[in-house]
């Protein structure tokens, strides 16, 4: 083809491109909105603290403002980390280390880090998934945060179907609309997990699975490992 010649773009391809562009613009607008809120409180509380006398800063109001500032900065950090992970996954620039991993092993690691939100899990210890373990854990953590919002107890059940393993996340009712529209997901989440659903959706796709809503609960699906042998439990000290 002549390099100066413009390739013909079929109308359906152009429409898909425009749709993708709208979705991306919407996503980035949401990200900016979510980051600006805690950034605002971090800046304001820091400025209020700076305007106070040393003595007042050590008082009750100073303590309250310091706590708010720290909470806001922590929230910004979580949003920034989630945002850049989403961007790297969108760009396909994240090297994956795919291996056979125990579904229960990965889930237990997540539950250990989030004991407050998670009531229980029910997973066969012999069930294996073919994934990048770090990414699977991040996706599960994100879904624990969404389903466990406002201290809702979370239960996760894993089951095998054909070539996949599905992690059913029971907790706060899942909304189908949140998959396409992040404002219907967890906006203004005080822990900074407003991007949890977009992140989990991208991770699931990168691992060859998906994130769906079934009967009001989240279902995170990833490929099943053909052969998985649980690691032997560490020997007890004599």
């Amino acid at each position, binding site marked *: 083809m002549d390099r100066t010649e413009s390739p013909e773009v079929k109308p359906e391809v152009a429409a898909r491109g425009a749709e993708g562009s709208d979705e991306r613009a919407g996503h980035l*607008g949401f990200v*900016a*909105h*979510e980051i*600006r*809120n*805690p*950034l*605002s*409180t971090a*800046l*304001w*509380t820091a*400025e*209020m603290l700076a305007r106070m006398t040393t003595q007042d800063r050590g008082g009750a*109001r100073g303590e*309250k*403002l310091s706590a*708010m500032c720290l*909470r*806001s900065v922590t*929230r910004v950090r979580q949003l920034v980390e989630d945002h850049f992970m989403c961007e790297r996954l969108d760009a396909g620039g994240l090297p994956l280390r795919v291996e056979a991993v125990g579904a229960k092993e990965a889930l237990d690691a997540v539950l250990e880090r989030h004991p407050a939100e998670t009531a229980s899990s029910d997973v066969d210890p012999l069930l294996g998934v073919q994934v990048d373990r770090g990414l699977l854990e991040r996706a599960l953590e994100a879904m624990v945060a969404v389903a466990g919002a406002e201290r809702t107890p979370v239960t996760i059940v894993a089951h095998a179907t054909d070539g996949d393993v599905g992690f059913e996340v029971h907790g706060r009712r899942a909304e189908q609309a949140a998959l396409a529209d992040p*404002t219907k997901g967890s*906006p*203004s989440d*005080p822990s900074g997990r407003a991007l949890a659903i977009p992140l989990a959706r991208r991770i699931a796709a990168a691992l060859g699975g998906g994130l769906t809503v079934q009967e009001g609960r989240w279902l995170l699906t990833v490929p099943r490992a053909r052969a998985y042998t649980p690691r032997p439990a560490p020997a007890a000290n004599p």
Partner: protein
Amino acid sequence: MTRPLVLVVDDDPDILDAICDILDAEGYRVSRARHGQEALDQVESARPDIILLDLMMPVMDGVAFSQALRQRPLVSDIPIVVISADGNPQRAAAVGAAGYLAKPFDIDALLAQVAGITRAPGEPRPGA
């Protein structure tokens, strides 16, 4: 003289806390609401002198709130200043706002807007 009452409407609890703290420290009375419906429920019983309004909120967003407010004769004239993180001042015009502040705005810009609307000419700031 009664200190001006500012109603802050935002779904983000940290934003509510921070703005209320700033205004309280300046001598204003403050009330708060987490969405438009909660704000509507209180404007007639405790009429604010100004409403600081976020746009993107659950239950009832800022646009729907402002439309509902304008339908109520007793409170339809309360000035609204939009405080938004969406970075689009056009949306403030759409709700007929008296002012627009894009988060994160400066504390002094907030105080200037509130004072400019609530203060009579020559009157000092509430905390001054």
